[in-house]
């Protein structure tokens, strides 16, 4: 292969490559890797069959509350609605003081000041805000960055951004990557969650590729969905992303967080997520610092289950406030 050899060798005999074609030589080529859909879904279904009883169930329910990003992302959101949400976030069950606060509330940027006023400065319940032209991400980068800066200035502790799926699906990975890097910079010191909108990515291979790109670009968390399209988060998608997180930890030691969002409405499904989490990443991730549920109606079902575990009887949903 003389042509290739001459391209590889520069005039002075040292190895050079065409720009844009540099290959890292050690320890091996970076491996995106593939995902087998059938086997992935079989494994997720297998883990969903774990039988969680008694004290381990109660511990899981408590943890699910502490991991929840209590969310409202409606065009119809008002200060009143967000104020009620904040109250619920701090004391999910007013009748049972042993029930902990949720991890965060998640709102649109315009409602961050209302949440901040309600929750005060102590940050025991954080404020997450979606930004970057949520939910489509189809705006110029300057607009997205301004969106992020505004949210943080108004008091957001965490920023949930969306990736540019248009760029990703057309193969312009660098554009998606660069945007995450810039958003991360603009959001600092707020934590950055990167929403992949897996329901639009089409394959688990794409979910894995987008997860690795987002983590490489500096995501503190990777998140499945905006909650605006169906399917949102599923158990196999979460497993697929957790496996990507596991690979990043094995390669670099960095522990990236995970947030499934959308479609998790019942305690049972949330517990299945914890089983997948626990058996894929282990104890280090069993904390709100590394795992969140993005949900609005999940909390009440969990509260009902907690009451059931403690009293042995189910209560009517009317005994739990809607917000």
């Amino acid at each position, binding site marked *: 292969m003389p042509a290739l050899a001459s391209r590889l060798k520069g005039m002075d005999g040292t190895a050079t490559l065409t720009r844009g074609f540099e290959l890292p030589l050690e320890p*091996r080529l970076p*491996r995106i*890797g*593939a*995902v*087998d859909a*059938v*086997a*992935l879904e*079989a*494994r997720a279904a297998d883990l969903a*069959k*774990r*039988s*969680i*009883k*008694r*004290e*381990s*169930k109660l*511990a*899981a329910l408590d*943890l699910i509350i*502490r991991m929840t990003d209590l969310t409202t992302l409606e065009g119809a959101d008002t200060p009143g609605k967000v104020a009620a949400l904040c109250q619920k976030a701090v004391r999910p069950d007013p009748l049972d003081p042993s029930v902990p606060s949720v991890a965060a509330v998640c709102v649109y940027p315009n409602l961050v000041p209302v949440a901040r006023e309600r929750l005060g400065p*102590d*940050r*025991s319940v*954080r404020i997450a805000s979606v930004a970057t032209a949520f939910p489509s991400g189809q705006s110029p980068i300057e607009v997205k960055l301004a969106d992020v800066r505004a949210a943080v200035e108004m008091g957001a*502790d965490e920023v949930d951004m969306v990736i540019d799926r248009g760029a990703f699906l057309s193969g312009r990975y660098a554009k998606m990557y660069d945007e995450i890097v810039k958003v991360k910079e603009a959001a600092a*010191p*707020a934590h950055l969650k990167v929403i992949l909108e897996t329901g639009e990515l089409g394959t688990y291979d794409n979910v894995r590729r987008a997860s690795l790109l987002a983590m490489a670009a500096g995501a503190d968390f990777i998140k499945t969905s905006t909650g605006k399209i169906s399917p949102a988060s599923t158990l196999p998608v979460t497993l697929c992303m957790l*496996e990507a997180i596991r690979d990043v930890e*094995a390669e670099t030691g960095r522990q990236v967080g995970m947030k499934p969002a959308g479609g998790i409405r019942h305690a049972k499904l949330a517990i299945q997520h*914890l089983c997948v989490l*626990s*058996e894929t990443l*282990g*104890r*280090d*991730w*069993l*904390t*709100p*610092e*590394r795992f969140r549920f993005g949900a609005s109606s999940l909390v009440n079902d969990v509260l009902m289950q907690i009451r059931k575990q403690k009293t042995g009887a189910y209560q009517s949903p009317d005994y739990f406030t809607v917000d």
Partner: protein
Amino acid sequence: MSEIEHRGPAAPAPLEWEYAPAPEARDIVSFRERYGLYIGGEVVDPRSGDWFTTSSPADESPLAEVAQASGEDVGLAVDAARAAYEDGWSSLRPAERAKYLFRIARILQERSRELAVAESLDGGKPIKESRDVDLPLAAAHFFYHAGWADKLEYAFPNRNPRPLGVAGQIIPWNFPLLMLAWKVAPALACGNTVVLKPAETTPLTALMFADVCRQAELPAGVVNIVTGDGSTGAELVRNEGLDKVAFTGSTEVGKAIQRELAGRGIPLTLELGGKAANIVFDDCALDQAVEGIVNGIYFNQGHVCCAGSRLLVQESIAEPLIGKLKRRLQTLRVGDPLDKNTDVGAINSRAQLEKIRELVASGEADGAEIYQPPCVLPERGYWFAPTVFVNVAQSSRIATEEIFGPVLSVLTFRTPDEAVEKANNTPYGLSAGVWTEKGSRILWMASRLRAGVVWANTFNRFDPASPFGGYKESGFGREGGRHGLEAYLRFDE
């Protein structure tokens, strides 16, 4: 605003989250104190007058007394089967035969929880496997063959298929009820009657199956069940009244059976041991391959004739793959077979445990590097931790002999040709696995691997419609599918 202030109060430590025990209710099954032989539709005491105890391998507690059938008992069972064959079963309208098989299938489904618990108690396998694999598949085999019973003319056009007569069937202890279904369903569908000899250590679900036959009102003598040790099996094979012998078990016994039958002109099906290669290429879906490897060797404690006991890994991914595999092993839950969260149960018998220990010791003596995840094994009963050997030589005993336990030997290869060469370099040939994202390579490999089943990007998948059987010392004849019917038919062409 400093970083610390922004993060808010110190986060609580991650949770130590353990699964609480989740035992399946044992009281759904109540064993009788004693189980006689099932001959001619009746439960009878053995003429031998001998009984033996079957116990649970998980805690060595006795479960029930079971008859030890002698040659005389076996003779009575064969006579009963002959009488039932000539007395109507062979000439019964095929759709009527199908009716009985459909009934049996439905009763197996209805009683699946009870039978699954019994299977786990007597054999030591995790309840999630007996519940999700053994019982559904056993019922599926009866449903599938019920469908064939009145369509044999279409399965073999212009060949005039006829039943053989009385089939003697000997089954192993690793999938007691499922192996029974693999044997009994096709035999009955084709119009034969059977004398079945279950394994010494796991006779209970077969004896409960006798009850299922009565519930289904199967004519007396169509299914006969004789229990006992190896000598009972030998008596059965020796019996002159048989028209067919089918055996699943060790290669050693299979050879003895073939010698015994030499010159008698009786058709024989043997499904014997294996040392399957599970071949992992560097372009595979790594995490799913790890799951497949785990399922391939630790499923049913490795008591699987087609277990993927030899892992052939392309050298360029050996390191990350083995790292992932070790990490995965740490999450395997070994313990009480009746706990719904148990992944790996008890070793079936003391004798099998001794054999596994001996081979593992030889692997260590050969210089292979052993890895076992930290796990606390119960004090009573027969237990062995999931084990991986790396740096195994192709010539080592743990790479050549069937261990039939939760022990994986890892070898490496460099090219597809080398993978095929190493995979085929065994006296066995029951199954193989290929892991690659490249479809053309799957086909290339499958056409070169000398194994009865080649799985691609999966392992240990079974279906009644798919023929199963071996090359070389793994046996001959096929079970399942249209091919499996042929083993229970003669053709008047």
